[in-house]
């Protein structure tokens, strides 16, 4: 199902009461012959209501919306539901994406739901729960020990790397300003924040033997903070924090430049989580930047 921009404008005009009677009727006859069109109009309604709730309608459109759209109790209810959803999103501002450490709670909830749904006898249900809990507990214990072993590194190594990260990302020492030719020992990768719609987009860099530094240019969707913090997670499970980052213009974008020593990046999947820092030192995640590395310099 595709939707052309002019068709979208037509549907929007219809919802805001801007079409003449002939235009209105042409659109409505389409609703009787094209089931996909019914869904497109319903979808456009959702988005119009959301724009009203988010406050992104122009003043004219807002007036039209209030005058011509909010004319039935069902539409008022749809608006209240949209407001409730907006309120819910604001109350749960930090991303609630499932993390590996949430998996045990989710599985437990699913297991309990399964047992209730089938109404097993109490004795046999308890027996099953106890057996599963024992087996599950053993699994969590083994898994956590494995994770601890992976994450463990001599503290002095982490400190040395973070010292190197701080040196590479000093605000005054802009060794590789964007726009100037890079030295031979630097690889560069520009990344936009990961979105569901970008799934499958190539985000990979190859580090050749002579490159000692990877420069990431993290494109910002919005530049709302004076300072940024990057949390780097490497393929082998290590985590490093880089503070004192700032945005800068690169072409039409605002980016945060993050320089990483190539030695900490093994071949595989790595990611950077970028956080904005408010003057009150509160943090808000502004983007997730996963990327793949092929590091030919490391064994």
């Amino acid at each position, binding site marked *: 199902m595709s939707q052309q921009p002019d068709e979208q404008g037509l549907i929007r005009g219809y919802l805001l009461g801007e079409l003449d009677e002939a235009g209105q009727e042409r659109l409505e006859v389409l609703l009787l012959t094209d089931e996909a069109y019914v869904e497109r109009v319903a979808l456009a309604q959702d988005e119009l209501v959301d724009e009203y709730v988010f406050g992104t309608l122009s003043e004219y459109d807002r007036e039209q919306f209030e005058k011509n759209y909010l004319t039935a109790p069902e539409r008022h209810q749809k608006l209240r*539901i949209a407001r409730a959803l907006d309120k819910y999103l604001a109350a749960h501002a930090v991303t609630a994406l499932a993390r590996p450490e949430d998996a045990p709670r989710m599985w437990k909830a699913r297991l309990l739901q399964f047992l209730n749904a089938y109404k097993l006898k109490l004795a046999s249900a308890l027996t099953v729960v106890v057996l599963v809990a024992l087996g599950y507990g053993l699994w969590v214990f083994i898994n956590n020990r494995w994770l601890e072993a992976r994450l463990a590194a001599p503290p002095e190594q982490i400190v040395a790397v973070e010292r190197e990260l701080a040196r590479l990302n000093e605000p005054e020492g802009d060794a590789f300003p964007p726009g100037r030719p890079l030295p031979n020992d630097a690889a560069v990768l520009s990344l936009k924040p990961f979105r569901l719609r970008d799934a499958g987009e190539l985000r990979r860099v190859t580090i050749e033997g002579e490159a000692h530094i990877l420069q990431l240019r993290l494109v910002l969707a919005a530049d709302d903070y004076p300072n940024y913090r990057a949390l780097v997670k490497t393929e082998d499970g290590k985590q490093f924090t880089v503070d004192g980052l700032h945005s800068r213009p690169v072409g039409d974008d605002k980016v945060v430049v993050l320089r990483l020593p190539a030695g900490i990046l093994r071949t595989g999947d790595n990611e950077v989580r970028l956080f904005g820092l408010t003057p009150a030192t509160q943090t808000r995640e502004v983007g997730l930047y996963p990327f793949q590395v092929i590091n030919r310099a490391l064994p």
Partner: protein
Amino acid sequence: MKKKTDLTQKEFDILLAWLDPDREQAARKYQTLHSGLIQIFTLRGCSSAEDLADETINRVARKVITLAGTYVGDPAKYFFGVAKKIYLESHREKTTQIESEGVIPDVPQDDVEPEYDCLERCLDALPPDSKQFILQYYREEKQAMINARKVVGLELNLSPTALRVRAHRIRKTLEACIRECLEQLG
């Protein structure tokens, strides 16, 4: 509005035959007409859209015996003509009611506490991946809408249709759940 009467099997069969000689195709066209009529009445602000859609179909079905031999053109346009007439009738009734009772059109309220409570319940009832998807989708869409207004001349970058459709379908499920929850709360 008169109480709706059900179509007899014979009337229904004649109606389907008029829509298409192939019964399966006719059934599909009937479904599209029915959902389209509900959508039209809803979009025109009618509060009992399903009843009005049924009334439209009933009236057309009763006429089909005389229509079938003489009508030339897309049956959908005939349905639309009858729907328009029914809309005007119901609109006249509603206007008269408003005038006599002095009803002022409802003003949106800021307090959405009942809807919020029901939303929480209904979100928890969704499959976890649907819940995660819908929340992340609207979080990102809100930011995208806000950003689009900040940047002058930004080329519209619509999300892929499949994402929008999926979000819309999950939202439709959520809205139906919330309405049912609100009815239970009274």
